[in-house]
C-alpha cells in the first residue's frame, strides 16, 4: 500500500466512525427530546399545524371577496350534487 491508500483507509475509519457516532448521538438526543416534549407539554393536535401553515400564503392572488363567493358557489353546487 502506498501513502495515499493508507490515508484513504485512515480517512474511512475515522470518517465512518465519526458519522456513526454523531448519528447515534442524534438518535438518542431526538428520542429524549420527543419524550420530554410529549411528557411535559400539553398535548397538541399534530396535523393542523402543517395545514394551517400551508394555507395563509403571503400573496394569495384571489381576492377575499371572490374567494368567499366561490366557496359559496361550490357549497351550493355540492348541496345540489348530493341530492
Amino acid at each position, binding site marked *: *500500500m*502506498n501513502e*495515499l*491508500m493508507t*490515508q*484513504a*483507509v485512515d*480517512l*474511512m475509519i*475515522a*470518517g*465512518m466512525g*465519526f*458519522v*456513526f*457516532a*454523531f*448519528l*447515534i*448521538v*442524534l*438518535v438518542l*438526543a*431526538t*428520542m429524549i*427530546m*420527543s419524550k420530554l*416534549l*410529549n411528557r411535559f*407539554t400539553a*398535548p*397538541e393536535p*399534530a*396535523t393542523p*399545524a*402543517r395545514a*394551517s*401553515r400551508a394555507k*395563509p*400564503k*403571503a400573496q394569495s392572488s384571489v381576492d377575499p371577496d371572490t374567494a368567499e363567493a366561490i366557496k359559496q358557489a361550490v357549497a351550493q353546487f355540492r348541496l345540489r350534487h348530493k341530492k
Partner: protein
Amino acid sequence: MDKLMTLWTGSGLFNIEIGQAIMIVVCLGLLYLAIRKGFEPLLLVPIGFGGILANIPEAGLALSAAENAIHVAKPEVLAALAGALDVAYQVGQAITPDVLGAFKSAYHTGSSAEVAMANNLASDFGYGNGMLHNFYLVIIGSTVGPLLIFMGVGAMTDFGPLLANPKTLLLGAAAQFGIFGTVLGAALLDWMGILDFTILEAAAIGIIGGADGPTSIYVSSVLAPHLLGAIAVSAYAYMALVPLIQPPIMKALTTKKERAIKMSQLRPVSKREKIVFPLVVLIAVVLFLPDAAPLLGMFCFGNLMRECGVVERLSDTAQNALINIVTIFLGLSVGSKLMAEKFLDGQTLGILALGIVAFGVGTAAGVLMAKLMNKFTKDPINPLIGSAGVSAVPMAARVSNKVGLEANPQNFLLMHAMGPNVAGVIGSAVAAGVMIKLLS
C-alpha cells in the same frame, strides 16, 4: 477591410480549438439529458448552458482579467505581469506556449497579493474578469451559494417521518460508506497507476457518494476546486440515474420476502418536536463537529424558519425567490468549470467511473444496514428503505417505494423511506465536515 479582418481573426470559427468544440457538444448533450430526459434540470440546464458559454473561443467568460491578458499575450502587458507574478520575461522575447504556460502557472500558484496585483494590472490594460468568473468567485468561491441552497432545502424538508422513527438516522449513516469507499477506490486507481490523485482530490471525488448536490459543490470547492465541474456534473447525473442504478442492487441484496415486509404506520409528530429538532441537530454540531457548522447550520436554520410558523415570509422566500436566484448563478458558475483544458482529462473519466461506484456502494451499505438493524429491533424494517439513505431526495425514497410495491402491491414505503432519505442529507453533511476537518 482592416476591420472585417479584425472581426474574422477574432471570430470563434477562426480560433476554436478541438477541445472547446468537444466540450460544447458535451454540454449540448447535458442540455438534452436535462430537457428531454428530465435529468435534474434545475441544475443541469444552467450548468450545461454555462459550460457552452465557458468554451466560447476568445470570449474568456470563465477567465479572470489576468488570465484573459495572458491569453491575448501582448508583449507590453506580459512584461507588466511578469513583474507582478515574478516570471522571467522581457519585452522582445518570443512568446512561446512555454512562456504562456509559465505565466499561467505563476498565476495559479501565486499568493493572494500577487494574484490581486496581476488582476489590477490587467484591468489597467483594459482586460476584465469574465462574467462567469465573477459569478464563480461570488457564489462558489465565497461558499455562499451551496450554503444558501442548503438553507432552502432545509426550508423545504419535512423531518416528520424521521422524527416518527429516529432509528432510521442510522441508515443515513451507513449509506455514507459510499463516500469513504469511493475515496478508497480513487486511492486504488492511484496505487494501480491508472490515474493520479492526491488525498484531497480523492476525498472530493468521494463526496459524489453523498448524492447531494450542494454538499458536493461545497466540499469540492474547498478541497479540489479544479475538479468541481466534473464532480458536480457526475453527482447530478447519477442522482438523476438513481432509478436505474439502485433497483438491481436492492434486489440482489434482499429476498422477495424481505422486500414485502410491511412497516407499522408512523406515529403523528407534534409541531413542537419539529421546531425543536433543528435546534437539537445544531447543538450536536456545536458539541461534536464545528466544521460541519456552515452546511448543517444553514440547513437547520432553513428548517427552523419552516417549522417555527412565525416567519412565513422568510421561509417562503428561502424556498422560492432566493433559492431560485442562487440556483441560476450556481449552475452557471459550475458550468464555468467545464472549460476544455480543465475537463477533458483522464481524471474526469475516473471521476465518472468512481461516481457510479459511489452510488452503488452507498446503496448497498444502506440496504445491508437495514438488514442488520432488523436483527436487533422488534418493529420490522423493510431493507428497501435503506437505499434511500444515500439522499438523492426525493428520488431515492420513491425508488424504495416502487421496488417495494413490486414485491407487495399493498406495501407503501414512501413515508418510511423519507426518514433515511433526509437522514442521508445530514449524514453526508457530517461526512463533509469530517473530511474538511481532517484534510484542509
